[in-house]
Protein backbone atom coordinates (compact mmCIF):
# COMPACT_ATOMS: atom_id res chain seq x y z
CA UNK A 1 0.00 0.00 0.00
CA UNK A 2 1.46 3.35 -1.05
CA UNK A 3 1.45 6.14 1.50
CA UNK A 4 1.68 9.90 0.90
CA UNK A 5 5.25 9.88 2.19
CA UNK A 6 6.50 7.23 -0.24
CA UNK A 7 8.68 8.54 -3.03
CA UNK A 8 7.12 8.67 -6.49
CA UNK A 9 10.14 6.81 -7.87
CA UNK A 10 12.68 4.63 -6.08
CA UNK A 11 15.69 3.00 -7.77
CA UNK A 12 17.58 0.47 -5.65
CA UNK A 13 20.88 -0.91 -6.95
CA UNK A 14 19.64 -0.84 -10.56
CA UNK A 15 21.95 -1.98 -13.33
CA UNK A 16 21.30 -1.96 -17.08
CA UNK A 17 23.91 -3.17 -19.53
CA UNK A 18 23.91 -2.94 -23.34
CA UNK A 19 26.55 -5.31 -24.63
CA UNK A 20 29.76 -3.96 -23.11
CA UNK A 21 28.25 -0.61 -22.15
CA UNK A 22 27.05 -0.27 -18.57
CA UNK A 23 24.42 2.42 -19.05
CA UNK A 24 23.47 2.51 -15.38
CA UNK A 25 25.23 0.62 -12.62
CA UNK A 26 24.04 0.10 -9.06
CA UNK A 27 21.91 3.21 -9.40
CA UNK A 28 20.17 4.35 -6.22
CA UNK A 29 17.98 7.40 -5.96
CA UNK A 30 14.52 8.55 -5.04
CA UNK A 31 12.25 11.15 -6.60
CA UNK A 32 10.01 12.51 -3.85
CA UNK A 33 6.28 12.73 -4.45
CA UNK A 34 5.06 16.15 -5.55
CA UNK A 35 8.57 17.53 -6.09
CA UNK A 36 10.76 18.44 -9.04
CA UNK A 37 13.70 16.07 -9.12
CA UNK A 38 16.52 17.03 -11.42
CA UNK A 39 18.77 14.30 -12.81
CA UNK A 40 21.88 16.29 -13.48
CA UNK A 41 24.79 14.95 -15.43
CA UNK A 42 26.80 15.12 -18.61
CA UNK A 43 25.78 13.36 -21.82
CA UNK A 44 26.18 9.61 -21.39
CA UNK A 45 25.58 9.74 -17.63
CA UNK A 46 22.63 7.34 -17.96
CA UNK A 47 19.76 9.81 -17.64
CA UNK A 48 17.80 8.64 -20.69
CA UNK A 49 18.24 4.99 -19.72
CA UNK A 50 16.92 5.90 -16.27
CA UNK A 51 13.77 7.40 -17.83
CA UNK A 52 13.29 4.33 -20.01
CA UNK A 53 13.73 2.02 -17.02
CA UNK A 54 11.22 4.08 -15.04
CA UNK A 55 8.36 3.40 -17.47
CA UNK A 56 9.38 -0.19 -18.15
CA UNK A 57 10.28 0.61 -21.76
CA UNK A 58 13.55 -1.05 -20.78
CA UNK A 59 13.84 -3.79 -18.19
CA UNK A 60 16.64 -3.62 -15.63
CA UNK A 61 19.18 -6.43 -15.56
CA UNK A 62 19.51 -6.15 -11.78
CA UNK A 63 18.04 -4.18 -8.92
CA UNK A 64 14.59 -2.98 -8.00
CA UNK A 65 12.50 -0.09 -9.36
CA UNK A 66 9.30 1.21 -7.83
CA UNK A 67 7.13 3.84 -9.47
CA UNK A 68 4.05 4.96 -7.52
CA UNK A 69 4.46 1.77 -5.51
CA UNK A 70 4.36 -0.37 -8.67
CA UNK A 71 7.07 -2.37 -10.41
CA UNK A 72 7.56 -1.37 -14.06
CA UNK A 73 8.72 -4.87 -14.96
CA UNK A 74 5.48 -6.53 -13.86
CA UNK A 75 3.01 -3.62 -13.76
CA UNK A 76 4.37 -1.78 -16.78
CA UNK A 77 0.99 -1.00 -18.36
CA UNK A 78 -0.29 0.59 -15.17
CA UNK A 79 2.97 2.53 -14.64
CA UNK A 80 2.88 3.86 -18.21
CA UNK A 81 -0.79 4.81 -17.84
CA UNK A 82 0.11 6.98 -14.84
CA UNK A 83 3.26 8.59 -16.22
CA UNK A 84 3.94 11.02 -19.03
CA UNK A 85 7.22 11.28 -20.92
CA UNK A 86 8.77 14.01 -23.02
CA UNK A 87 11.74 12.43 -24.82
CA UNK A 88 14.88 14.41 -25.72
CA UNK A 89 13.90 14.87 -29.37
CA UNK A 90 10.13 14.56 -29.44
CA UNK A 91 9.06 12.69 -32.56
CA UNK A 92 5.63 12.73 -34.16
CA UNK A 93 3.93 11.39 -37.23
CA UNK A 94 4.93 14.31 -39.42
CA UNK A 95 2.29 13.71 -42.11
CA UNK A 96 -0.46 14.01 -39.49
CA UNK A 97 -1.68 17.29 -38.07
CA UNK A 98 -1.01 18.34 -34.50
CA UNK A 99 -4.61 17.49 -33.68
CA UNK A 100 -4.35 13.99 -35.20
CA UNK A 101 -1.17 13.30 -33.22
CA UNK A 102 -2.80 14.48 -29.99
CA UNK A 103 -5.95 12.52 -30.75
CA UNK A 104 -3.90 9.34 -31.20
CA UNK A 105 -2.15 9.89 -27.86
CA UNK A 106 -5.43 10.70 -26.11
CA UNK A 107 -7.08 7.52 -27.35
CA UNK A 108 -4.18 5.44 -26.13
CA UNK A 109 -3.71 7.10 -22.75
CA UNK A 110 -7.19 8.29 -21.87
CA UNK A 111 -9.45 6.18 -24.08
CA UNK A 112 -11.09 9.35 -25.42
CA UNK A 113 -9.87 12.49 -27.15
CA UNK A 114 -11.90 14.78 -24.88
CA UNK A 115 -8.80 16.10 -23.13
CA UNK A 116 -6.73 16.69 -26.28
CA UNK A 117 -7.81 20.26 -27.01
CA UNK A 118 -7.50 21.30 -23.38
CA UNK A 119 -3.92 19.97 -23.29
CA UNK A 120 -3.10 21.91 -26.47
CA UNK A 121 -4.53 25.11 -24.99
CA UNK A 122 -2.47 24.64 -21.87
CA UNK A 123 0.73 24.82 -23.90
CA UNK A 124 -0.56 27.45 -26.34
CA UNK A 125 -0.35 25.24 -29.39
CA UNK A 126 -4.07 25.10 -30.18
CA UNK A 127 -3.83 27.54 -33.10
CA UNK A 128 -1.45 25.21 -34.96
CA UNK A 129 -3.40 22.01 -34.44
CA UNK A 130 -4.70 21.87 -38.01
CA UNK A 131 -1.18 22.06 -39.48
CA UNK A 132 0.91 19.00 -40.32
CA UNK A 133 3.54 18.50 -37.60
CA UNK A 134 6.24 18.22 -40.28
CA UNK A 135 6.00 21.99 -40.63
CA UNK A 136 6.33 22.75 -36.91
CA UNK A 137 9.31 24.60 -35.46
CA UNK A 138 11.36 22.96 -32.68
CA UNK A 139 9.58 25.07 -30.08
CA UNK A 140 6.15 24.07 -31.39
CA UNK A 141 7.16 20.41 -31.37
CA UNK A 142 8.29 20.69 -27.75
CA UNK A 143 5.03 22.33 -26.73
CA UNK A 144 3.08 19.64 -28.58
CA UNK A 145 5.20 16.99 -26.84
CA UNK A 146 4.40 18.56 -23.46
CA UNK A 147 0.70 18.64 -24.33
CA UNK A 148 0.89 15.00 -25.38
CA UNK A 149 2.66 14.05 -22.16
CA UNK A 150 0.02 15.58 -19.87
CA UNK A 151 -3.02 14.61 -21.93
CA UNK A 152 -4.01 11.97 -19.37
CA UNK A 153 -3.12 14.08 -16.33
CA UNK A 154 -0.25 11.83 -15.22
CA UNK A 155 0.93 11.60 -11.63
CA UNK A 156 4.58 11.41 -12.70
CA UNK A 157 6.09 13.45 -15.51
CA UNK A 158 9.48 12.49 -16.94
CA UNK A 159 11.11 15.25 -18.99
CA UNK A 160 14.29 14.26 -20.78
CA UNK A 161 16.20 17.35 -21.94
CA UNK A 162 12.94 19.15 -22.77
CA UNK A 163 14.66 22.35 -23.85
CA UNK A 164 17.20 20.74 -26.19
CA UNK A 165 17.46 22.75 -29.39
CA UNK A 166 15.20 25.58 -28.21
CA UNK A 167 16.06 29.27 -28.36
CA UNK A 168 16.48 30.93 -24.92
CA UNK A 169 12.99 32.44 -24.92
CA UNK A 170 11.26 29.17 -25.81
CA UNK A 171 13.42 27.32 -23.29
CA UNK A 172 12.41 29.79 -20.58
CA UNK A 173 8.74 29.34 -21.52
CA UNK A 174 9.06 25.58 -21.29
CA UNK A 175 10.72 25.85 -17.86
CA UNK A 176 7.93 28.14 -16.70
CA UNK A 177 5.39 25.57 -17.85
CA UNK A 178 7.25 22.88 -15.92
CA UNK A 179 7.26 25.06 -12.82
CA UNK A 180 3.52 25.55 -13.26
CA UNK A 181 2.94 21.80 -13.47
CA UNK A 182 5.09 21.31 -10.37
CA UNK A 183 3.04 23.87 -8.49
CA UNK A 184 -0.01 21.70 -9.12
CA UNK A 185 1.53 18.80 -7.21
CA UNK A 186 2.88 16.62 -10.03
CA UNK A 187 5.99 14.57 -9.36
CA UNK A 188 8.40 15.71 -12.01
CA UNK A 189 11.74 14.27 -13.05
CA UNK A 190 13.75 16.63 -15.23
CA UNK A 191 16.86 15.28 -16.93
CA UNK A 192 19.32 17.89 -18.02
CA UNK A 193 22.98 18.66 -18.41
CA UNK A 194 22.25 22.40 -18.34
CA UNK A 195 22.77 23.62 -14.80
CA UNK A 196 21.07 26.97 -15.26
CA UNK A 197 17.98 25.10 -16.42
CA UNK A 198 17.61 23.28 -13.13
CA UNK A 199 18.30 26.40 -11.09
CA UNK A 200 15.31 27.60 -9.20
CA UNK A 201 12.96 24.74 -10.02
CA UNK A 202 14.84 21.79 -8.49
CA UNK A 203 13.46 20.55 -5.17
CA UNK A 204 15.72 17.53 -5.27
CA UNK A 205 18.92 17.02 -7.22
CA UNK A 206 20.52 13.75 -8.29
CA UNK A 207 23.99 14.20 -9.69
CA UNK A 208 24.65 11.40 -12.16
CA UNK A 209 27.86 10.35 -13.79
CA UNK A 210 28.83 7.17 -15.62
CA UNK A 211 25.58 5.47 -14.69
CA UNK A 212 25.85 6.16 -10.98
CA UNK A 213 24.05 8.60 -8.71
CA UNK A 214 26.99 10.40 -7.14
CA UNK A 215 25.03 12.65 -4.82
CA UNK A 216 21.36 13.26 -4.13
CA UNK A 217 19.32 15.59 -2.00
CA UNK A 218 17.62 18.99 -1.84
CA UNK A 219 19.88 21.82 -3.13
CA UNK A 220 20.03 23.53 0.29
CA UNK A 221 21.08 20.31 1.99
CA UNK A 222 23.70 19.70 -0.68
CA UNK A 223 24.91 23.27 -0.30
CA UNK A 224 25.37 22.86 3.42
CA UNK A 225 27.09 19.52 2.84
CA UNK A 226 29.46 20.61 0.09
CA UNK A 227 29.82 24.34 0.77
CA UNK A 228 29.43 24.43 4.57
CA UNK A 229 31.36 27.67 5.22
CA UNK A 230 29.41 30.88 4.61
CA UNK A 231 30.62 33.07 1.74
CA UNK A 232 30.04 36.81 1.75
CA UNK A 233 30.40 39.02 -1.29
CA UNK A 234 31.99 42.42 -0.58
CA UNK A 235 32.44 45.36 -2.89
CA UNK A 236 33.53 48.93 -2.28
CA UNK A 237 34.05 52.24 -4.06
CA UNK A 238 37.71 52.00 -3.15
CA UNK A 239 38.31 48.33 -3.90
CA UNK A 240 41.95 48.36 -2.80
CA UNK A 241 40.64 48.85 0.76
CA UNK A 242 39.27 45.30 0.63
CA UNK A 243 42.75 43.81 0.24
CA UNK A 244 43.07 43.74 4.02
CA UNK A 245 40.20 41.19 4.27
CA UNK A 246 42.46 38.17 3.84
CA UNK A 247 44.38 39.16 6.97
CA UNK A 248 41.31 39.44 9.22
CA UNK A 249 40.61 36.81 11.82
CA UNK A 250 37.91 34.29 10.86
CA UNK A 251 38.38 34.75 7.10
CA UNK A 252 39.35 31.42 5.54
CA UNK A 253 39.61 32.33 1.91
CA UNK A 254 39.32 35.40 -0.32
CA UNK A 255 38.75 35.36 -4.08
CA UNK A 256 38.11 38.09 -6.64
CA UNK A 257 35.04 37.26 -8.72
CA UNK A 258 33.27 40.50 -9.67
CA UNK A 259 33.40 41.51 -5.99
CA UNK A 260 35.40 39.83 -3.27
CA UNK A 261 34.10 36.42 -2.23
CA UNK A 262 35.21 35.92 1.36
CA UNK A 263 34.73 32.52 2.99
CA UNK A 264 34.18 32.89 6.72
CA UNK A 265 34.53 30.43 9.56
CA UNK A 266 31.36 31.71 11.13
CA UNK A 267 28.69 34.26 10.20
CA UNK A 268 28.84 35.69 13.73
CA UNK A 269 32.13 37.34 12.72
CA UNK A 270 30.44 39.44 10.03
CA UNK A 271 29.48 42.58 12.09
CA UNK A 272 33.01 42.87 13.42
CA UNK A 273 34.42 42.35 9.96
CA UNK A 274 32.31 45.16 8.52
CA UNK A 275 33.27 47.46 11.36
CA UNK A 276 36.98 46.70 10.85
CA UNK A 277 36.73 47.35 7.12
CA UNK A 278 34.95 50.68 7.66
CA UNK A 279 37.51 51.64 10.27
CA UNK A 280 40.19 50.80 7.74
CA UNK A 281 38.69 53.32 5.29
CA UNK A 282 36.59 51.04 3.11
CA UNK A 283 33.52 52.67 1.52
CA UNK A 284 31.41 49.52 1.20
CA UNK A 285 28.83 49.27 -1.59
CA UNK A 286 27.93 45.63 -1.24
CA UNK A 287 27.80 43.09 1.61
CA UNK A 288 25.77 40.10 0.54
CA UNK A 289 25.70 36.42 1.53
CA UNK A 290 26.35 34.14 -1.44
CA UNK A 291 23.60 31.60 -2.07
CA UNK A 292 25.46 29.00 -4.14
CA UNK A 293 24.02 28.42 -7.59
CA UNK A 294 23.47 24.89 -8.76
CA UNK A 295 26.38 25.38 -11.09
CA UNK A 296 28.72 26.28 -8.23
CA UNK A 297 27.36 23.39 -6.24
CA UNK A 298 27.75 21.00 -9.17
CA UNK A 299 31.40 21.82 -9.69
CA UNK A 300 32.06 21.68 -5.96
CA UNK A 301 30.45 18.25 -5.79
CA UNK A 302 32.41 17.08 -8.83
CA UNK A 303 35.64 18.36 -7.30
CA UNK A 304 34.88 16.69 -3.99
CA UNK A 305 34.17 13.34 -5.66
CA UNK A 306 37.26 13.52 -7.84
CA UNK A 307 39.31 14.08 -4.69
CA UNK A 308 37.63 11.10 -3.05
CA UNK A 309 38.30 8.95 -6.14
CA UNK A 310 41.97 9.94 -6.07
Amino acid at each position, binding site marked *: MKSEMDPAIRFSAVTKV*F*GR*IRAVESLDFIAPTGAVTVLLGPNGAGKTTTV*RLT*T*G*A*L*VADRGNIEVLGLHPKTD*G*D*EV*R*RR*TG*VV*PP*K*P*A*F*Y*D*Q*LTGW*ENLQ*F*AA*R*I*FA*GTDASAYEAAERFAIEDALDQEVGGYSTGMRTRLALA*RAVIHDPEVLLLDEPTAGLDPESARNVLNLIAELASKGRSIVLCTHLLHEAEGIADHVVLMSEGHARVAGPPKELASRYMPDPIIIFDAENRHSLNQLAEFEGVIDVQWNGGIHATLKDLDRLPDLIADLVDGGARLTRVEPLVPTLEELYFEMQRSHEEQDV
Partner: protein
Amino acid sequence: MSWSHVMAMAGADLRRLFKSKDYWIPLMLMAGLFFVIIPFFSLSMIGSLENTQFVDQVTQIVGQLPDSVSRAVSGETATARASYVVAVFLLAPIAIIVPLTISAAVGSNAIVGERERGTGEFLAHSPLKTSEIYIGKLIASLVPGYLATFVGFSLYAVIVNLTVGPSLGGWFFPTKGWLVLILWVIPPFIAIALSLILRLSARVRSAAAAQQASSLVTLPIIIVSYAVAAGVVASPDASGLWVGAVAWVIAGLLITRGAKTLQRDRLLGVASEV
Protein backbone atom coordinates in the same frame (compact mmCIF):
# COMPACT_ATOMS: atom_id res chain seq x y z
CA MET B 1 -5.88 -6.91 -25.53
CA SER B 2 -7.80 -3.67 -26.02
CA TRP B 3 -9.35 -3.40 -29.49
CA SER B 4 -9.72 0.36 -29.12
CA HIS B 5 -5.93 0.53 -28.70
CA VAL B 6 -5.41 -1.74 -31.70
CA MET B 7 -7.71 0.36 -33.86
CA ALA B 8 -6.08 3.60 -32.67
CA MET B 9 -2.70 2.24 -33.76
CA ALA B 10 -4.04 0.94 -37.08
CA GLY B 11 -5.98 4.16 -37.67
CA ALA B 12 -2.95 6.38 -37.12
CA ASP B 13 -0.85 4.26 -39.48
CA LEU B 14 -3.52 4.18 -42.18
CA ARG B 15 -4.16 7.90 -41.96
CA ARG B 16 -0.43 8.53 -42.30
CA LEU B 17 -0.23 6.14 -45.21
CA PHE B 18 -3.05 7.68 -47.18
CA LYS B 19 -1.53 11.12 -46.68
CA SER B 20 1.79 9.94 -48.14
CA LYS B 21 1.16 10.43 -51.82
CA ASP B 22 4.74 9.57 -52.71
CA TYR B 23 4.03 6.15 -51.25
CA TRP B 24 0.66 5.22 -52.64
CA ILE B 25 0.74 6.86 -56.07
CA PRO B 26 3.44 4.45 -57.40
CA LEU B 27 1.55 1.54 -55.90
CA MET B 28 -1.68 2.72 -57.54
CA LEU B 29 0.16 2.96 -60.85
CA MET B 30 1.49 -0.56 -60.41
CA ALA B 31 -1.99 -1.86 -59.58
CA GLY B 32 -3.45 0.00 -62.55
CA LEU B 33 -0.82 -1.48 -64.84
CA PHE B 34 -1.42 -5.08 -63.74
CA PHE B 35 -5.18 -4.97 -63.19
CA VAL B 36 -6.26 -2.68 -66.04
CA ILE B 37 -3.71 -1.77 -68.69
CA ILE B 38 -1.93 -5.09 -69.30
CA PRO B 39 -5.19 -7.14 -69.25
CA PHE B 40 -6.95 -4.66 -71.52
CA PHE B 41 -4.25 -4.60 -74.19
CA SER B 42 -3.42 -8.29 -74.07
CA LEU B 43 -7.07 -9.40 -74.21
CA SER B 44 -7.93 -6.86 -76.90
CA MET B 45 -5.01 -8.09 -78.96
CA ILE B 46 -5.94 -11.77 -78.61
CA GLY B 47 -9.54 -10.96 -79.48
CA SER B 48 -8.42 -9.41 -82.75
CA LEU B 49 -6.30 -12.43 -83.76
CA GLU B 50 -7.70 -15.17 -86.00
CA ASN B 51 -6.04 -18.57 -86.53
CA THR B 52 -2.56 -17.39 -85.54
CA GLN B 53 0.22 -19.51 -84.12
CA PHE B 54 -0.50 -18.20 -80.61
CA VAL B 55 -4.17 -19.22 -80.78
CA ASP B 56 -3.15 -22.66 -82.08
CA GLN B 57 -0.68 -23.11 -79.24
CA VAL B 58 -3.26 -22.15 -76.61
CA THR B 59 -5.75 -24.55 -78.19
CA GLN B 60 -3.17 -27.35 -78.03
CA ILE B 61 -2.39 -26.57 -74.38
CA VAL B 62 -6.06 -26.64 -73.44
CA GLY B 63 -6.35 -30.00 -75.17
CA GLN B 64 -3.59 -31.38 -72.95
CA LEU B 65 -5.14 -30.16 -69.69
CA PRO B 66 -7.11 -32.56 -67.46
CA ASP B 67 -10.71 -33.05 -68.58
CA SER B 68 -12.12 -31.19 -65.59
CA VAL B 69 -10.06 -28.13 -66.47
CA SER B 70 -10.48 -28.21 -70.23
CA ARG B 71 -14.25 -28.60 -69.84
CA ALA B 72 -14.25 -25.37 -67.85
CA VAL B 73 -12.80 -23.43 -70.79
CA SER B 74 -15.68 -21.64 -72.49
CA GLY B 75 -15.90 -20.30 -76.03
CA GLU B 76 -17.21 -21.35 -79.42
CA THR B 77 -14.15 -20.32 -81.46
CA ALA B 78 -10.45 -20.96 -80.89
CA THR B 79 -9.87 -17.23 -80.38
CA ALA B 80 -12.62 -17.01 -77.76
CA ARG B 81 -11.20 -20.04 -75.94
CA ALA B 82 -7.70 -18.54 -76.04
CA SER B 83 -9.04 -15.28 -74.64
CA TYR B 84 -10.80 -17.19 -71.87
CA VAL B 85 -7.62 -19.09 -70.95
CA VAL B 86 -5.54 -15.91 -70.77
CA ALA B 87 -8.18 -13.97 -68.82
CA VAL B 88 -8.99 -16.69 -66.33
CA PHE B 89 -5.81 -18.79 -65.97
CA LEU B 90 -2.80 -16.86 -67.18
CA LEU B 91 -3.41 -13.69 -65.24
CA ALA B 92 -4.31 -15.48 -61.99
CA PRO B 93 -0.93 -14.92 -60.33
CA ILE B 94 -1.48 -11.17 -60.47
CA ALA B 95 -4.04 -11.84 -57.79
CA ILE B 96 -1.18 -12.53 -55.41
CA ILE B 97 1.70 -10.42 -56.64
CA VAL B 98 0.09 -6.99 -56.60
CA PRO B 99 -1.62 -7.03 -53.16
CA LEU B 100 1.30 -8.87 -51.59
CA THR B 101 3.78 -6.32 -52.92
CA ILE B 102 1.64 -3.46 -51.65
CA SER B 103 1.21 -4.97 -48.19
CA ALA B 104 4.89 -5.94 -47.97
CA ALA B 105 5.94 -2.39 -48.78
CA VAL B 106 3.86 -1.09 -45.88
CA GLY B 107 4.67 -3.87 -43.43
CA SER B 108 8.43 -3.91 -43.90
CA ASN B 109 8.67 -0.34 -42.66
CA ALA B 110 6.07 -0.70 -39.92
CA ILE B 111 8.19 -1.25 -36.82
CA VAL B 112 11.68 -0.29 -37.94
CA GLY B 113 10.12 2.93 -39.27
CA GLU B 114 8.95 3.80 -35.76
CA ARG B 115 12.51 3.35 -34.55
CA GLU B 116 14.00 5.43 -37.34
CA ARG B 117 11.54 8.30 -36.93
CA GLY B 118 11.82 8.23 -33.15
CA THR B 119 8.08 7.75 -32.73
CA GLY B 120 8.81 4.30 -31.30
CA GLU B 121 9.97 6.08 -28.13
CA PHE B 122 6.44 7.40 -27.64
CA LEU B 123 4.92 3.96 -28.25
CA ALA B 124 7.41 2.33 -25.86
CA HIS B 125 6.42 4.72 -23.06
CA SER B 126 2.71 4.35 -23.80
CA PRO B 127 0.30 1.89 -22.17
CA LEU B 128 -0.09 0.10 -25.52
CA LYS B 129 0.77 -3.56 -25.14
CA THR B 130 3.30 -4.80 -27.67
CA SER B 131 0.68 -7.24 -28.98
CA GLU B 132 -1.67 -4.29 -29.60
CA ILE B 133 1.07 -2.48 -31.53
CA TYR B 134 1.81 -5.61 -33.57
CA ILE B 135 -1.84 -6.32 -34.42
CA GLY B 136 -2.54 -2.64 -35.14
CA LYS B 137 0.37 -2.51 -37.56
CA LEU B 138 -0.65 -5.82 -39.11
CA ILE B 139 -4.13 -4.45 -39.79
CA ALA B 140 -2.69 -1.23 -41.20
CA SER B 141 -0.51 -3.29 -43.55
CA LEU B 142 -3.28 -5.71 -44.52
CA VAL B 143 -5.85 -3.06 -45.41
CA PRO B 144 -3.98 -1.64 -48.46
CA GLY B 145 -3.35 -5.18 -49.74
CA TYR B 146 -6.96 -6.26 -49.31
CA LEU B 147 -8.19 -3.00 -50.76
CA ALA B 148 -5.95 -3.53 -53.78
CA THR B 149 -7.30 -7.07 -54.12
CA PHE B 150 -10.98 -6.12 -54.09
CA VAL B 151 -10.77 -2.86 -56.02
CA GLY B 152 -8.23 -4.30 -58.45
CA PHE B 153 -10.27 -7.36 -59.22
CA SER B 154 -13.45 -5.40 -59.59
CA LEU B 155 -11.70 -3.36 -62.26
CA TYR B 156 -10.16 -6.48 -63.73
CA ALA B 157 -13.62 -8.08 -63.91
CA VAL B 158 -14.98 -5.10 -65.80
CA ILE B 159 -12.05 -5.14 -68.27
CA VAL B 160 -12.30 -8.90 -68.83
CA ASN B 161 -16.08 -8.87 -69.29
CA LEU B 162 -16.00 -5.90 -71.65
CA THR B 163 -13.19 -7.25 -73.84
CA VAL B 164 -13.81 -11.02 -73.79
CA GLY B 165 -17.44 -11.20 -72.65
CA PRO B 166 -19.07 -10.44 -76.06
CA SER B 167 -17.33 -13.43 -77.69
CA LEU B 168 -18.33 -15.72 -74.79
CA GLY B 169 -22.00 -14.85 -74.70
CA GLY B 170 -21.97 -12.19 -71.96
CA TRP B 171 -20.41 -11.46 -68.59
CA PHE B 172 -18.66 -14.55 -67.20
CA PHE B 173 -16.07 -13.18 -64.79
CA PRO B 174 -15.32 -13.74 -61.91
CA THR B 175 -15.57 -17.48 -62.19
CA LYS B 176 -16.16 -19.68 -59.14
CA GLY B 177 -12.42 -20.34 -58.86
CA TRP B 178 -11.58 -16.63 -58.83
CA LEU B 179 -14.14 -15.94 -56.13
CA VAL B 180 -12.63 -18.65 -53.93
CA LEU B 181 -9.19 -17.24 -54.67
CA ILE B 182 -10.05 -13.62 -53.90
CA LEU B 183 -12.26 -14.15 -50.89
CA TRP B 184 -10.74 -17.21 -49.28
CA VAL B 185 -7.19 -17.94 -50.45
CA ILE B 186 -5.43 -14.63 -51.08
CA PRO B 187 -6.25 -12.99 -47.71
CA PRO B 188 -4.48 -15.62 -45.56
CA PHE B 189 -1.48 -15.67 -47.88
CA ILE B 190 -1.07 -11.92 -47.44
CA ALA B 191 -1.49 -12.35 -43.68
CA ILE B 192 1.19 -15.08 -43.61
CA ALA B 193 3.64 -12.90 -45.49
CA LEU B 194 2.93 -9.88 -43.29
CA SER B 195 3.20 -11.75 -40.01
CA LEU B 196 6.73 -12.73 -41.03
CA ILE B 197 7.61 -9.32 -42.47
CA LEU B 198 6.56 -7.54 -39.26
CA ARG B 199 8.79 -9.81 -37.22
CA LEU B 200 11.66 -8.98 -39.54
CA SER B 201 10.79 -5.30 -39.30
CA ALA B 202 11.20 -5.51 -35.54
CA ARG B 203 14.61 -7.13 -35.77
CA VAL B 204 16.49 -5.21 -38.46
CA ARG B 205 18.26 -1.88 -37.94
CA SER B 206 17.01 0.16 -40.89
CA ALA B 207 14.07 0.47 -43.23
CA ALA B 208 16.31 -0.37 -46.17
CA ALA B 209 17.37 -3.61 -44.50
CA ALA B 210 13.73 -4.36 -43.72
CA GLN B 211 12.78 -3.99 -47.38
CA GLN B 212 15.62 -6.30 -48.43
CA ALA B 213 14.67 -8.83 -45.79
CA SER B 214 10.98 -8.69 -46.67
CA SER B 215 11.76 -9.67 -50.24
CA LEU B 216 13.29 -12.87 -48.86
CA VAL B 217 9.89 -13.67 -47.35
CA THR B 218 7.75 -12.28 -50.15
CA LEU B 219 9.42 -14.06 -53.07
CA PRO B 220 8.96 -17.65 -51.83
CA ILE B 221 5.40 -16.86 -50.82
CA ILE B 222 4.72 -15.40 -54.27
CA ILE B 223 6.10 -18.57 -55.87
CA VAL B 224 4.01 -20.85 -53.65
CA SER B 225 0.91 -18.74 -54.01
CA TYR B 226 1.43 -18.52 -57.79
CA ALA B 227 1.10 -22.27 -57.99
CA VAL B 228 -1.75 -22.33 -55.51
CA ALA B 229 -3.63 -19.56 -57.30
CA ALA B 230 -3.34 -21.30 -60.66
CA GLY B 231 -4.49 -24.58 -59.10
CA VAL B 232 -7.44 -23.01 -57.29
CA VAL B 233 -8.63 -21.20 -60.39
CA ALA B 234 -8.38 -24.38 -62.44
CA SER B 235 -10.02 -26.58 -59.83
CA PRO B 236 -11.94 -24.40 -57.41
CA ASP B 237 -14.05 -26.90 -55.51
CA ALA B 238 -12.60 -28.80 -52.57
CA SER B 239 -8.94 -27.99 -53.17
CA GLY B 240 -9.45 -24.23 -52.99
CA LEU B 241 -11.38 -24.48 -49.78
CA TRP B 242 -8.78 -26.75 -48.18
CA VAL B 243 -5.85 -24.64 -49.31
CA GLY B 244 -7.56 -21.54 -47.91
CA ALA B 245 -8.39 -23.25 -44.62
CA VAL B 246 -4.82 -24.46 -44.11
CA ALA B 247 -3.47 -21.01 -45.01
CA TRP B 248 -5.80 -19.35 -42.48
CA VAL B 249 -4.62 -21.73 -39.73
CA ILE B 250 -0.96 -21.03 -40.54
CA ALA B 251 -1.65 -17.29 -40.66
CA GLY B 252 -3.42 -17.44 -37.29
CA LEU B 253 -0.54 -19.29 -35.67
CA LEU B 254 2.09 -16.95 -37.09
CA ILE B 255 0.16 -13.85 -36.07
CA THR B 256 -0.38 -15.14 -32.53
CA ARG B 257 3.29 -15.97 -32.21
CA GLY B 258 4.39 -12.69 -33.77
CA ALA B 259 2.21 -10.68 -31.39
CA LYS B 260 3.88 -12.37 -28.43
CA THR B 261 7.45 -11.93 -29.60
CA LEU B 262 7.60 -8.17 -30.21
CA GLN B 263 9.78 -6.65 -27.48
CA ARG B 264 9.19 -3.12 -26.20
CA ASP B 265 12.89 -2.22 -26.35
CA ARG B 266 12.83 -2.91 -30.11
CA LEU B 267 10.77 0.24 -30.47
CA LEU B 268 13.53 2.29 -28.87
CA GLY B 269 16.29 1.23 -31.15
CA VAL B 270 18.53 0.29 -28.26
CA ALA B 271 17.93 -3.45 -28.15
CA SER B 272 20.65 -5.84 -27.18
CA GLU B 273 22.83 -5.09 -30.19
CA VAL B 274 23.93 -1.78 -28.60
